[in-house]
Protein backbone atom coordinates (compact mmCIF):
# COMPACT_ATOMS: atom_id res chain seq x y z
CA UNK A 1 0.00 0.00 0.00
CA UNK A 2 1.32 3.40 -1.01
CA UNK A 3 -1.07 6.17 0.07
CA UNK A 4 -1.11 9.31 -2.03
CA UNK A 5 0.30 12.42 -0.31
CA UNK A 6 -1.72 14.72 -2.64
CA UNK A 7 -4.51 16.58 -0.78
CA UNK A 8 -6.63 16.86 -3.96
CA UNK A 9 -6.49 13.08 -4.47
CA UNK A 10 -7.71 12.67 -0.89
CA UNK A 11 -10.57 15.12 -1.39
CA UNK A 12 -11.61 13.40 -4.65
CA UNK A 13 -11.34 9.95 -3.02
CA UNK A 14 -13.44 10.91 0.01
CA UNK A 15 -16.08 12.51 -2.24
CA UNK A 16 -16.13 9.36 -4.40
CA UNK A 17 -16.72 7.23 -1.30
CA UNK A 18 -19.42 9.67 -0.15
CA UNK A 19 -21.24 9.24 -3.47
CA UNK A 20 -20.81 5.44 -3.41
CA UNK A 21 -22.30 5.38 0.12
CA UNK A 22 -25.69 5.96 -1.54
CA UNK A 23 -25.57 2.30 -2.62
CA UNK A 24 -26.06 1.34 1.04
CA UNK A 25 -28.69 3.99 1.74
CA UNK A 26 -29.34 7.72 1.55
CA UNK A 27 -27.13 9.55 4.06
CA UNK A 28 -25.77 13.05 4.87
CA UNK A 29 -22.33 12.36 3.33
CA UNK A 30 -23.97 11.57 0.00
CA UNK A 31 -26.13 14.71 0.21
CA UNK A 32 -23.10 16.91 0.93
CA UNK A 33 -21.16 15.44 -2.01
CA UNK A 34 -24.15 15.76 -4.33
CA UNK A 35 -24.81 19.41 -3.42
CA UNK A 36 -21.13 20.22 -3.66
CA UNK A 37 -21.02 18.75 -7.15
CA UNK A 38 -24.05 20.71 -8.35
CA UNK A 39 -22.74 23.95 -6.85
CA UNK A 40 -19.20 23.60 -8.15
CA UNK A 41 -20.41 22.57 -11.63
CA UNK A 42 -22.76 25.54 -11.92
CA UNK A 43 -20.22 27.97 -10.52
CA UNK A 44 -17.53 26.73 -12.89
CA UNK A 45 -19.87 26.87 -15.88
CA UNK A 46 -21.14 30.39 -15.14
CA UNK A 47 -17.64 31.75 -14.51
CA UNK A 48 -16.31 30.03 -17.64
CA UNK A 49 -19.12 31.36 -19.83
CA UNK A 50 -18.69 34.87 -18.45
CA UNK A 51 -14.93 34.97 -19.02
CA UNK A 52 -14.83 33.03 -22.30
CA UNK A 53 -18.05 34.07 -24.01
CA UNK A 54 -19.70 37.17 -22.55
CA UNK A 55 -16.51 39.22 -22.06
CA UNK A 56 -14.66 38.50 -25.35
CA UNK A 57 -17.74 38.28 -27.59
CA UNK A 58 -19.91 41.03 -26.11
CA UNK A 59 -18.43 43.18 -23.34
CA UNK A 60 -15.00 43.89 -24.86
CA UNK A 61 -16.26 44.74 -28.39
CA UNK A 62 -18.94 47.04 -26.97
CA UNK A 63 -16.38 48.69 -24.69
CA UNK A 64 -14.08 49.24 -27.67
CA UNK A 65 -16.94 50.64 -29.76
CA UNK A 66 -17.95 53.02 -26.95
CA UNK A 67 -14.41 54.31 -26.53
CA UNK A 68 -14.18 54.83 -30.31
CA UNK A 69 -17.32 56.97 -30.14
CA UNK A 70 -15.81 59.01 -27.32
CA UNK A 71 -12.61 59.58 -29.30
CA UNK A 72 -13.79 59.85 -32.91
CA UNK A 73 -17.56 60.18 -32.76
CA UNK A 74 -20.07 57.89 -34.45
CA UNK A 75 -18.94 56.33 -37.71
CA UNK A 76 -20.45 53.88 -40.19
CA UNK A 77 -17.87 51.24 -39.21
CA UNK A 78 -19.40 51.00 -35.76
CA UNK A 79 -22.53 49.54 -37.37
CA UNK A 80 -20.72 47.13 -39.66
CA UNK A 81 -21.15 43.49 -38.48
CA UNK A 82 -17.82 42.53 -40.07
CA UNK A 83 -15.95 44.75 -37.57
CA UNK A 84 -15.33 43.13 -34.19
CA UNK A 85 -16.33 46.32 -32.37
CA UNK A 86 -19.82 47.28 -33.52
CA UNK A 87 -23.06 48.41 -31.97
CA UNK A 88 -25.14 45.87 -33.92
CA UNK A 89 -24.19 43.42 -31.15
CA UNK A 90 -26.83 45.19 -29.06
CA UNK A 91 -29.60 43.63 -31.22
CA UNK A 92 -28.82 39.94 -30.42
CA UNK A 93 -28.06 40.99 -26.84
CA UNK A 94 -31.52 42.54 -26.54
CA UNK A 95 -33.15 39.47 -28.15
CA UNK A 96 -31.23 37.20 -25.80
CA UNK A 97 -32.24 39.23 -22.77
CA UNK A 98 -35.88 38.61 -23.69
CA UNK A 99 -35.39 35.09 -22.30
CA UNK A 100 -35.57 36.75 -18.89
CA UNK A 101 -39.07 38.05 -19.69
CA UNK A 102 -40.52 34.75 -18.49
CA UNK A 103 -39.86 35.89 -14.91
CA UNK A 104 -42.36 38.77 -15.37
CA UNK A 105 -45.89 37.42 -15.99
CA UNK A 106 -47.17 40.58 -17.76
CA UNK A 107 -44.52 40.40 -20.50
CA UNK A 108 -43.68 36.70 -20.33
CA UNK A 109 -44.95 36.24 -23.91
CA UNK A 110 -41.86 38.08 -25.14
CA UNK A 111 -39.82 34.92 -24.48
CA UNK A 112 -41.33 33.53 -27.69
CA UNK A 113 -39.20 35.93 -29.75
CA UNK A 114 -35.74 34.51 -28.88
CA UNK A 115 -37.17 30.97 -28.95
CA UNK A 116 -38.57 31.63 -32.45
CA UNK A 117 -35.18 32.91 -33.65
CA UNK A 118 -33.41 29.92 -32.12
CA UNK A 119 -35.83 27.35 -33.53
CA UNK A 120 -35.99 28.98 -36.94
CA UNK A 121 -32.23 29.17 -37.27
CA UNK A 122 -31.54 25.62 -36.13
CA UNK A 123 -34.39 24.07 -38.12
CA UNK A 124 -33.24 25.77 -41.29
CA UNK A 125 -29.71 24.61 -40.61
CA UNK A 126 -30.52 21.10 -39.46
CA UNK A 127 -33.29 19.79 -41.70
CA UNK A 128 -31.25 19.45 -44.91
CA UNK A 129 -28.14 18.27 -43.07
CA UNK A 130 -29.93 15.69 -40.93
CA UNK A 131 -31.99 14.49 -43.90
CA UNK A 132 -28.84 13.94 -45.93
CA UNK A 133 -26.78 12.28 -43.17
CA UNK A 134 -29.40 10.32 -41.25
CA UNK A 135 -32.00 9.44 -43.87
CA UNK A 136 -30.70 9.50 -47.45
CA UNK A 137 -27.25 8.04 -46.72
CA UNK A 138 -28.79 5.40 -44.45
CA UNK A 139 -31.35 4.39 -47.08
CA UNK A 140 -28.62 4.24 -49.68
CA UNK A 141 -26.52 2.08 -47.32
CA UNK A 142 -29.40 -0.33 -46.83
CA UNK A 143 -30.02 -0.88 -50.55
CA UNK A 144 -28.64 -3.97 -52.23
CA UNK A 145 -26.62 -3.39 -55.37
CA UNK A 146 -24.32 -5.58 -57.43
CA UNK A 147 -21.44 -4.25 -55.31
CA UNK A 148 -23.08 -5.72 -52.20
CA UNK A 149 -22.41 -9.23 -53.52
CA UNK A 150 -18.72 -8.93 -54.30
CA UNK A 151 -18.18 -11.58 -51.64
CA UNK A 152 -20.84 -13.87 -50.22
CA UNK A 153 -20.40 -12.85 -46.55
CA UNK A 154 -21.06 -9.18 -47.31
CA UNK A 155 -23.95 -10.16 -49.56
CA UNK A 156 -25.52 -12.30 -46.84
CA UNK A 157 -25.26 -9.52 -44.24
CA UNK A 158 -26.65 -7.05 -46.76
CA UNK A 159 -29.72 -9.26 -47.19
CA UNK A 160 -30.09 -9.62 -43.39
CA UNK A 161 -29.88 -5.83 -42.92
CA UNK A 162 -32.44 -5.19 -45.66
CA UNK A 163 -34.80 -7.84 -44.25
CA UNK A 164 -34.36 -6.39 -40.75
CA UNK A 165 -35.14 -2.84 -41.89
CA UNK A 166 -38.21 -3.85 -43.93
CA UNK A 167 -39.64 -6.17 -41.25
CA UNK A 168 -39.06 -3.64 -38.46
CA UNK A 169 -40.81 -0.91 -40.48
CA UNK A 170 -43.70 -3.32 -41.06
CA UNK A 171 -43.88 -3.98 -37.30
CA UNK A 172 -44.40 -0.23 -36.77
CA UNK A 173 -46.96 0.00 -39.62
CA UNK A 174 -50.30 0.21 -37.84
CA UNK A 175 -52.65 1.17 -40.69
CA UNK A 176 -53.49 -2.49 -41.39
CA UNK A 177 -54.05 -5.40 -39.06
CA UNK A 178 -50.93 -7.58 -38.67
CA UNK A 179 -52.30 -10.78 -40.25
CA UNK A 180 -51.08 -13.10 -42.98
CA UNK A 181 -47.84 -12.08 -44.70
CA UNK A 182 -47.91 -8.71 -42.93
CA UNK A 183 -48.20 -10.47 -39.56
CA UNK A 184 -45.37 -12.87 -40.35
CA UNK A 185 -43.10 -9.99 -41.42
CA UNK A 186 -44.05 -8.05 -38.26
CA UNK A 187 -43.12 -11.07 -36.10
CA UNK A 188 -39.72 -11.22 -37.81
CA UNK A 189 -39.48 -7.44 -37.24
CA UNK A 190 -39.99 -7.83 -33.49
CA UNK A 191 -37.13 -10.35 -33.39
CA UNK A 192 -34.83 -7.74 -34.95
CA UNK A 193 -36.09 -5.11 -32.49
CA UNK A 194 -35.39 -7.44 -29.56
CA UNK A 195 -31.90 -8.24 -30.84
CA UNK A 196 -31.31 -4.48 -31.09
CA UNK A 197 -32.51 -3.95 -27.51
CA UNK A 198 -30.30 -6.81 -26.34
CA UNK A 199 -27.25 -5.30 -28.03
CA UNK A 200 -28.05 -1.90 -26.50
CA UNK A 201 -28.45 -3.44 -23.05
CA UNK A 202 -25.17 -5.33 -23.34
CA UNK A 203 -23.31 -2.20 -24.39
CA UNK A 204 -24.98 -0.21 -21.61
CA UNK A 205 -23.75 -2.73 -19.03
CA UNK A 206 -20.26 -2.45 -20.54
CA UNK A 207 -20.41 1.36 -20.33
CA UNK A 208 -21.57 1.47 -16.73
CA UNK A 209 -19.01 -1.13 -15.66
CA UNK A 210 -16.31 0.93 -17.40
CA UNK A 211 -17.27 3.99 -15.34
CA UNK A 212 -17.15 1.95 -12.13
CA UNK A 213 -13.74 0.60 -13.17
CA UNK A 214 -12.52 4.18 -13.69
CA UNK A 215 -13.46 5.12 -10.14
CA UNK A 216 -12.12 1.89 -8.64
CA UNK A 217 -8.79 2.37 -10.42
CA UNK A 218 -8.68 5.91 -9.06
CA UNK A 219 -9.32 4.68 -5.51
CA UNK A 220 -7.06 1.63 -5.56
CA UNK A 221 -4.26 3.01 -7.71
CA UNK A 222 -4.09 6.79 -7.43
CA UNK A 223 -5.26 7.03 -3.79
CA UNK A 224 -4.40 3.81 -1.97
CA UNK A 225 -1.57 2.71 -4.26
CA UNK A 226 -2.60 -0.95 -4.04
CA UNK A 227 -2.92 -1.50 -7.79
CA UNK A 228 0.33 -1.06 -9.73
Amino acid sequence: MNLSPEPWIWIAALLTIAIFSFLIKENPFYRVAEHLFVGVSNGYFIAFMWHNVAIPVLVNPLRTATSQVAEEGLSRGLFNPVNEANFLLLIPTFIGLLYLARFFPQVSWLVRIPIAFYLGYYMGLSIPAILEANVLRQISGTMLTRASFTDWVNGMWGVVVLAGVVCTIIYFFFSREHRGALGAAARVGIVFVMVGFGASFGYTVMARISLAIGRMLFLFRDWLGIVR
Partner: protein
Amino acid sequence: MGWIERLLTIDRRIIFAIIALVLILPMIFPFGFRTPVTPPTQKLFDAVDAIPPRDKVLTISADYDPQTEPELHPMTIALLRHAFATHTRVLVLALYVQGLGLAEDALTTVVAEFNGRATSPQDSIVYGRDYVFLGWQPPPIIPILGMGTSIRQVFPRDYYGNDTDTLPLMKETETYNDMGLLVSVSGGSAPLWYVAYAQSRYGIRVGAGITAVSVADFFPYLETGQFSGMLAGMKGAAEYEELVERSLAVGGRRKAMEGMSSQSAAHIAIMAFVVLANIGYLARRRRKA
Protein backbone atom coordinates in the same frame (compact mmCIF):
# COMPACT_ATOMS: atom_id res chain seq x y z
CA MET B 1 -39.08 -19.06 1.90
CA GLY B 2 -38.06 -21.43 -0.93
CA TRP B 3 -34.89 -21.12 -2.96
CA ILE B 4 -36.77 -19.50 -5.83
CA GLU B 5 -38.04 -16.66 -3.65
CA ARG B 6 -34.60 -16.30 -2.11
CA LEU B 7 -33.10 -16.05 -5.59
CA LEU B 8 -35.57 -13.37 -6.62
CA THR B 9 -35.32 -11.30 -3.44
CA ILE B 10 -31.56 -11.01 -3.01
CA ASP B 11 -30.76 -7.71 -1.30
CA ARG B 12 -29.36 -5.44 -4.03
CA ARG B 13 -26.53 -4.42 -1.68
CA ILE B 14 -25.22 -8.00 -1.89
CA ILE B 15 -25.19 -7.67 -5.69
CA PHE B 16 -23.33 -4.33 -5.43
CA ALA B 17 -20.78 -5.95 -3.07
CA ILE B 18 -20.24 -8.87 -5.46
CA ILE B 19 -19.77 -6.50 -8.42
CA ALA B 20 -17.32 -4.41 -6.36
CA LEU B 21 -15.30 -7.52 -5.54
CA VAL B 22 -15.42 -8.70 -9.14
CA LEU B 23 -14.05 -5.31 -10.23
CA ILE B 24 -11.39 -4.91 -7.55
CA LEU B 25 -9.82 -8.39 -7.46
CA PRO B 26 -8.82 -8.49 -11.17
CA MET B 27 -7.25 -5.03 -10.76
CA ILE B 28 -4.97 -6.39 -8.05
CA PHE B 29 -4.46 -9.77 -9.76
CA PRO B 30 -4.95 -9.11 -13.51
CA PHE B 31 -5.45 -12.04 -15.92
CA GLY B 32 -2.96 -10.59 -18.43
CA PHE B 33 -4.79 -11.56 -21.62
CA ARG B 34 -4.43 -10.03 -25.09
CA THR B 35 -7.18 -7.94 -26.61
CA PRO B 36 -8.19 -9.10 -30.10
CA VAL B 37 -8.63 -6.10 -32.37
CA THR B 38 -12.10 -5.71 -33.90
CA PRO B 39 -12.69 -4.35 -37.44
CA PRO B 40 -14.07 -0.91 -36.39
CA THR B 41 -10.90 -0.20 -34.36
CA GLN B 42 -8.63 -1.51 -37.11
CA LYS B 43 -10.43 0.74 -39.62
CA LEU B 44 -9.80 3.84 -37.50
CA PHE B 45 -6.18 2.87 -36.97
CA ASP B 46 -5.72 2.42 -40.73
CA ALA B 47 -7.47 5.74 -41.42
CA VAL B 48 -5.11 7.59 -39.06
CA ASP B 49 -2.16 5.72 -40.54
CA ALA B 50 -3.19 6.75 -44.04
CA ILE B 51 -2.98 10.50 -43.29
CA PRO B 52 -0.07 11.95 -45.30
CA PRO B 53 2.05 13.36 -42.43
CA ARG B 54 3.40 16.51 -44.10
CA ASP B 55 0.30 17.22 -46.15
CA LYS B 56 -2.73 16.82 -43.90
CA VAL B 57 -3.47 17.00 -40.19
CA LEU B 58 -5.38 14.79 -37.78
CA THR B 59 -8.01 16.70 -35.82
CA ILE B 60 -9.17 15.35 -32.49
CA SER B 61 -12.36 16.83 -31.10
CA ALA B 62 -12.42 16.07 -27.36
CA ASP B 63 -16.17 16.24 -26.85
CA TYR B 64 -16.41 14.47 -23.50
CA ASP B 65 -16.47 15.27 -19.84
CA PRO B 66 -15.13 13.71 -16.61
CA GLN B 67 -18.18 11.41 -16.34
CA THR B 68 -17.08 9.42 -19.38
CA GLU B 69 -13.34 9.84 -18.80
CA PRO B 70 -12.56 6.13 -18.08
CA GLU B 71 -13.90 5.11 -21.50
CA LEU B 72 -12.91 8.05 -23.67
CA HIS B 73 -9.76 9.62 -22.26
CA PRO B 74 -7.58 6.58 -23.12
CA MET B 75 -8.81 6.94 -26.73
CA THR B 76 -7.55 10.52 -26.96
CA ILE B 77 -4.20 9.51 -25.46
CA ALA B 78 -3.82 6.53 -27.82
CA LEU B 79 -4.77 8.65 -30.87
CA LEU B 80 -2.19 11.29 -29.91
CA ARG B 81 0.49 8.62 -29.45
CA HIS B 82 -0.34 7.20 -32.87
CA ALA B 83 -0.22 10.62 -34.55
CA PHE B 84 3.02 11.76 -32.94
CA ALA B 85 4.69 8.40 -33.59
CA THR B 86 3.90 8.69 -37.30
CA HIS B 87 4.86 12.43 -37.37
CA THR B 88 1.27 13.37 -38.18
CA ARG B 89 0.45 16.89 -37.09
CA VAL B 90 -2.53 17.31 -34.79
CA LEU B 91 -5.21 19.89 -34.09
CA VAL B 92 -7.14 19.44 -30.85
CA LEU B 93 -10.38 21.21 -30.01
CA ALA B 94 -13.43 20.67 -27.82
CA LEU B 95 -17.09 21.29 -28.52
CA TYR B 96 -17.87 21.13 -24.79
CA VAL B 97 -16.27 23.24 -22.09
CA GLN B 98 -15.66 20.18 -19.91
CA GLY B 99 -13.51 18.57 -22.60
CA LEU B 100 -10.86 21.31 -22.42
CA GLY B 101 -9.18 20.19 -19.21
CA LEU B 102 -9.17 16.56 -20.30
CA ALA B 103 -7.79 17.40 -23.75
CA GLU B 104 -5.02 19.47 -22.15
CA ASP B 105 -4.23 16.60 -19.78
CA ALA B 106 -3.96 14.15 -22.69
CA LEU B 107 -1.71 16.52 -24.65
CA THR B 108 0.53 17.23 -21.66
CA THR B 109 0.88 13.50 -20.90
CA VAL B 110 1.67 12.39 -24.45
CA VAL B 111 3.93 15.34 -25.32
CA ALA B 112 5.93 14.70 -22.12
CA GLU B 113 6.26 11.00 -23.05
CA PHE B 114 7.61 11.79 -26.53
CA ASN B 115 9.81 14.68 -25.48
CA GLY B 116 11.22 12.54 -22.65
CA ARG B 117 12.47 10.07 -25.28
CA ALA B 118 13.52 12.68 -27.88
CA THR B 119 17.20 12.94 -28.71
CA SER B 120 17.06 16.01 -30.97
CA PRO B 121 14.79 19.02 -31.61
CA GLN B 122 13.54 17.23 -34.75
CA ASP B 123 12.37 14.30 -32.63
CA SER B 124 10.66 16.57 -30.11
CA ILE B 125 7.01 17.48 -30.25
CA VAL B 126 6.82 21.25 -30.55
CA TYR B 127 3.73 23.35 -29.93
CA GLY B 128 2.65 25.31 -33.01
CA ARG B 129 4.75 23.13 -35.31
CA ASP B 130 3.51 19.61 -34.51
CA TYR B 131 0.26 20.33 -32.73
CA VAL B 132 -2.10 23.13 -31.81
CA PHE B 133 -4.72 23.16 -29.09
CA LEU B 134 -7.48 25.35 -30.53
CA GLY B 135 -9.67 25.33 -27.43
CA TRP B 136 -13.41 25.82 -27.54
CA GLN B 137 -15.97 28.02 -29.26
CA PRO B 138 -19.72 27.98 -28.54
CA PRO B 139 -22.24 26.80 -29.60
CA PRO B 140 -21.17 23.44 -31.12
CA ILE B 141 -22.73 23.67 -34.59
CA ILE B 142 -21.26 27.10 -35.36
CA PRO B 143 -17.57 26.12 -35.12
CA ILE B 144 -18.33 22.88 -37.01
CA LEU B 145 -19.74 24.89 -39.92
CA GLY B 146 -17.23 27.71 -39.61
CA MET B 147 -14.19 25.45 -39.92
CA GLY B 148 -15.35 24.63 -43.42
CA THR B 149 -14.64 28.25 -44.38
CA SER B 150 -11.75 29.24 -42.12
CA ILE B 151 -10.43 27.54 -38.98
CA ARG B 152 -8.52 30.66 -37.96
CA GLN B 153 -11.66 32.79 -38.12
CA VAL B 154 -13.46 30.37 -35.81
CA PHE B 155 -10.47 30.16 -33.47
CA PRO B 156 -8.68 33.54 -33.70
CA ARG B 157 -6.83 32.58 -30.50
CA ASP B 158 -5.78 29.14 -29.33
CA TYR B 159 -6.42 27.65 -25.88
CA TYR B 160 -3.31 29.37 -24.48
CA GLY B 161 -4.24 32.79 -25.87
CA ASN B 162 -1.81 32.79 -28.84
CA ASP B 163 -2.92 34.46 -32.06
CA THR B 164 -3.53 31.46 -34.36
CA ASP B 165 -2.25 33.47 -37.36
CA THR B 166 1.21 33.33 -35.79
CA LEU B 167 1.38 29.53 -35.40
CA PRO B 168 3.24 27.75 -38.25
CA LEU B 169 0.86 24.78 -38.32
CA MET B 170 -2.17 27.06 -38.61
CA LYS B 171 -0.64 28.90 -41.57
CA GLU B 172 -0.85 25.61 -43.49
CA THR B 173 -4.22 24.56 -42.13
CA GLU B 174 -7.03 26.67 -43.51
CA THR B 175 -10.15 24.50 -43.66
CA TYR B 176 -11.41 20.91 -43.55
CA ASN B 177 -9.58 20.39 -46.87
CA ASP B 178 -6.33 20.36 -44.90
CA MET B 179 -7.52 17.67 -42.53
CA GLY B 180 -6.89 14.02 -43.38
CA LEU B 181 -9.31 12.84 -40.72
CA LEU B 182 -11.35 14.30 -37.88
CA VAL B 183 -11.95 12.03 -34.91
CA SER B 184 -14.67 13.08 -32.49
CA VAL B 185 -14.18 11.44 -29.10
CA SER B 186 -17.56 11.94 -27.55
CA GLY B 187 -19.95 10.83 -24.84
CA GLY B 188 -22.88 12.22 -26.86
CA SER B 189 -23.92 12.95 -30.43
CA ALA B 190 -20.95 15.07 -31.51
CA PRO B 191 -19.66 12.56 -34.12
CA LEU B 192 -23.09 12.70 -35.79
CA TRP B 193 -22.96 16.51 -35.85
CA TYR B 194 -19.64 16.31 -37.68
CA VAL B 195 -21.18 13.84 -40.14
CA ALA B 196 -24.30 15.96 -40.69
CA TYR B 197 -22.75 19.44 -40.81
CA ALA B 198 -19.11 18.93 -41.84
CA GLN B 199 -19.04 15.71 -43.85
CA SER B 200 -22.25 16.28 -45.84
CA ARG B 201 -21.22 19.81 -46.74
CA TYR B 202 -17.42 19.71 -46.91
CA GLY B 203 -16.64 16.01 -47.39
CA ILE B 204 -14.35 15.63 -44.37
CA ARG B 205 -13.64 12.04 -43.27
CA VAL B 206 -14.95 11.47 -39.74
CA GLY B 207 -13.93 8.88 -37.16
CA ALA B 208 -15.65 8.30 -33.84
CA GLY B 209 -14.56 7.38 -30.35
CA ILE B 210 -17.71 6.76 -28.35
CA THR B 211 -19.01 5.36 -25.09
CA ALA B 212 -20.31 1.80 -25.16
CA VAL B 213 -23.87 3.07 -24.54
CA SER B 214 -23.92 4.71 -27.99
CA VAL B 215 -22.39 1.86 -29.98
CA ALA B 216 -25.62 0.22 -31.12
CA ASP B 217 -26.89 3.60 -32.38
CA PHE B 218 -23.66 4.49 -34.17
CA PHE B 219 -22.92 1.20 -35.94
CA PRO B 220 -25.13 2.04 -38.97
CA TYR B 221 -22.90 5.06 -39.69
CA LEU B 222 -19.85 2.81 -39.74
CA GLU B 223 -21.58 0.39 -42.10
CA THR B 224 -22.47 3.15 -44.56
CA GLY B 225 -18.90 4.48 -44.51
CA GLN B 226 -19.91 7.78 -42.92
CA PHE B 227 -17.50 6.90 -40.11
CA SER B 228 -14.03 5.92 -41.29
CA GLY B 229 -13.60 3.89 -38.11
CA MET B 230 -14.95 3.66 -34.60
CA LEU B 231 -13.65 3.00 -31.10
CA ALA B 232 -16.37 1.42 -28.99
CA GLY B 233 -16.06 2.11 -25.27
CA MET B 234 -13.22 1.00 -23.02
CA LYS B 235 -12.76 -2.17 -25.11
CA GLY B 236 -12.21 -0.09 -28.26
CA ALA B 237 -9.72 2.11 -26.41
CA ALA B 238 -7.83 -0.97 -25.16
CA GLU B 239 -7.71 -2.35 -28.71
CA TYR B 240 -6.30 0.93 -30.03
CA GLU B 241 -3.68 1.00 -27.25
CA GLU B 242 -2.73 -2.56 -28.24
CA LEU B 243 -2.43 -1.59 -31.93
CA VAL B 244 -0.32 1.48 -31.19
CA GLU B 245 2.02 -0.47 -28.93
CA ARG B 246 2.25 -3.51 -31.20
CA SER B 247 2.54 -1.73 -34.57
CA LEU B 248 4.49 1.37 -33.61
CA ALA B 249 6.33 0.19 -30.48
CA VAL B 250 5.09 3.22 -28.57
CA GLY B 251 4.90 2.56 -24.84
CA GLY B 252 3.23 4.43 -22.02
CA ARG B 253 0.54 3.78 -19.45
CA ARG B 254 -2.39 1.85 -21.02
CA LYS B 255 -5.30 3.10 -18.99
CA ALA B 256 -8.02 1.21 -20.87
CA MET B 257 -6.07 -2.05 -20.85
CA GLU B 258 -5.69 -1.76 -17.07
CA GLY B 259 -9.46 -2.07 -16.73
CA MET B 260 -10.03 -4.94 -19.17
CA SER B 261 -9.54 -7.79 -16.65
CA SER B 262 -12.16 -6.21 -14.38
CA GLN B 263 -14.39 -5.57 -17.40
CA SER B 264 -14.32 -9.25 -18.44
CA ALA B 265 -14.89 -10.51 -14.90
CA ALA B 266 -17.82 -8.11 -14.42
CA HIS B 267 -19.39 -9.24 -17.70
CA ILE B 268 -19.23 -12.87 -16.59
CA ALA B 269 -20.79 -11.91 -13.24
CA ILE B 270 -23.60 -9.93 -14.91
CA MET B 271 -24.31 -12.82 -17.30
CA ALA B 272 -24.49 -15.17 -14.30
CA PHE B 273 -26.94 -12.80 -12.58
CA VAL B 274 -29.11 -12.61 -15.70
CA VAL B 275 -29.17 -16.42 -16.04
CA LEU B 276 -29.94 -16.91 -12.32
CA ALA B 277 -32.71 -14.32 -12.36
CA ASN B 278 -34.27 -15.95 -15.42
CA ILE B 279 -34.10 -19.40 -13.83
CA GLY B 280 -35.84 -18.00 -10.75
CA TYR B 281 -38.45 -16.21 -12.87
CA LEU B 282 -39.23 -19.28 -14.99
CA ALA B 283 -39.35 -21.58 -11.95
CA ARG B 284 -41.77 -19.26 -10.16
CA ARG B 285 -43.96 -18.99 -13.26
CA ARG B 286 -44.06 -22.78 -13.63
CA ARG B 287 -44.92 -23.19 -9.94
CA LYS B 288 -47.76 -20.64 -10.19
CA ALA B 289 -49.10 -22.37 -13.30
